[in-house]
């Protein structure tokens, strides 16, 4: 039952928060290292007014989405071509595979040399971290479409290129949406790296600023904000998935 799942999930989260709160209050650890959840929550509230938290969260979200959409818009068609046509796959996959293994942080200096410290660098790093992964994921999704579906389309007269839209796309769409949801999560990781290194706005910047003054509650509030945004996006994506692809469940 989905209701039961939600109840258990909420209960375990609350239990964890309670333990954390008690540990902090008991004085076992210094407040400077582990402030209580209530303190973090209070700080989060006051940062909305005092530190323009919502503005920074908005900026970060905007960066994540613009880079992600750009990467997805390029990766989906290219991935479909790579997965559908063997020569295209043979030509592109080695390159994609190589770049995919480069850790994004290692490319920060290069990116700053190329794009400076403005928006360009951030978007580029996020794009870099997701585009190549997504190409390979999409290519795999296309290849996993059952061959019977393609053959059924062929025998009712669908020409080759129409099978991309008749069969490949609808058959892979559910996994595609799932992969996009996961990839969007990675974007946040890369964004925070980018914002710590080169930014004067965004959640990564806020967290890093707070760290310089040893404001642990502020650091944690920033982290929690990212978590909340991530959780909300993820749940929304899952809800849409259930709604769009309800036909998959019996």
């Amino acid at each position: 039952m989905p209701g039961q799942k939600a109840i258990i999930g909420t209960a375990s989260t609350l239990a964890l928060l309670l333990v954390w709160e008690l540990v902090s209050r008991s004085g076992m650890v210094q407040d400077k290292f582990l402030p209580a959840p209530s303190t973090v929550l209070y700080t989060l509230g006051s940062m909305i007014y005092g530190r323009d938290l919502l503005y920074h969260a908005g900026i970060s979200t905007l960066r994540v989405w613009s880079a992600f959409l750009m990467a997805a818009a390029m990766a989906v068609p290219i991935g479909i071509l790579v997965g559908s046509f063997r020569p295209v796959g043979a030509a592109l996959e080695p390159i994609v595979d190589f770049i995919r293994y480069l850790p994004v942080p290692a490319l920060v200096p290069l990116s700053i040399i190329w794009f400076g410290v403005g928006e360009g660098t951030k978007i580029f790093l996020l794009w870099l971290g997701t585009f190549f992964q997504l190409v390979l994921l999409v290519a795999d999704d296309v290849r996993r479409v059952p061959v019977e579906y393609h053959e059924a389309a062929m025998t009712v007269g669908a020409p080759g290129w129409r099978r991309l839209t008749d069969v490949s796309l609808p058959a892979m769409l559910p996994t595609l949406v799932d992969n996009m949801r996961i990839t969007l999560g990675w974007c946040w990781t890369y964004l925070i790296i980018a914002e710590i290194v080169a930014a004067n706005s965004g959640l990564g910047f806020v967290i890093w600023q707070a760290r310089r003054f040893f404001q642990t509650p502020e650091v944690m509030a920033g982290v929690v904000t990212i978590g909340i945004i991530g959780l909300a996006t993820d749940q929304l994506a899952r809800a849409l998935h259930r709604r769009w692809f309800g036909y998959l469940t019996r």
Partner: protein
Amino acid sequence: MTYLSFDTVTKRYGKTEVVQPFDLDVAEGELVAFLGPSGCGKTTLMRMVGGLEAPSSGCIMLRGEALTRPDRRRGMVFQSYSAFPWLTVAGNVAYGMRYRSDLSAAEKRDQVAHFLDLVGLTAFADEWPNRISGGMRQRVAIARTLAAGSDILLMDEPFGALDAQRREFLQLELRRIQIDEGKTVIFVTHDVEEAAFLADRVIVFTRRPARILAEVDVTARIGASRTLEMREGSGFFALRNELLHHVRSTASQEEDAV
């Protein structure tokens, strides 16, 4: 000129010989049943006719023209369920007509209703394939293939998952469609009775690699028209027994091989 002919067709997968030099002529409007032990190469032969697999040597010809790629002239009902899960039952049937230019949109709608009725799925028109039974899903695939209006129907154990009543009804319907619309049908089955009842000619295969063990001309024996009463007649009974003997001999081959 023969309509559909297999000309010394062979098929190998790596070192495994699946079809030995195979020759067969199928007349236009004929229903030929393939009867043979599991794994002998029946599906492989069908896929080669459908253009989904190329022969290792020899060729399959339609009116003297070698068949190389799939097209709408040869419709295929697959052994595994192939209904598209993202389309409704009616959507799947309609997809069979997507590339037909000989029908107007209104005619296509009528045809969808007609074929849904034929396979007994009218009440499930708006249901998703994942939410109906396996036998029903197979009927969706049958309706989709019939809707495509192919000249040649390649049916790979299409009625295997159906209950006896539905199976008998669809056997009669298939026979009617074949006769009325002049369709040529190749029909794979494990069921001796089904082969005898449905086919003009039954080809019994040996174990792999597939060769023709026996060929039985059913129409010459019991005539072209088939009714349920015939199933109980002595002529049909003798025919069925004869086929059964052939099938048994493939089983004893198996013992010899061990």
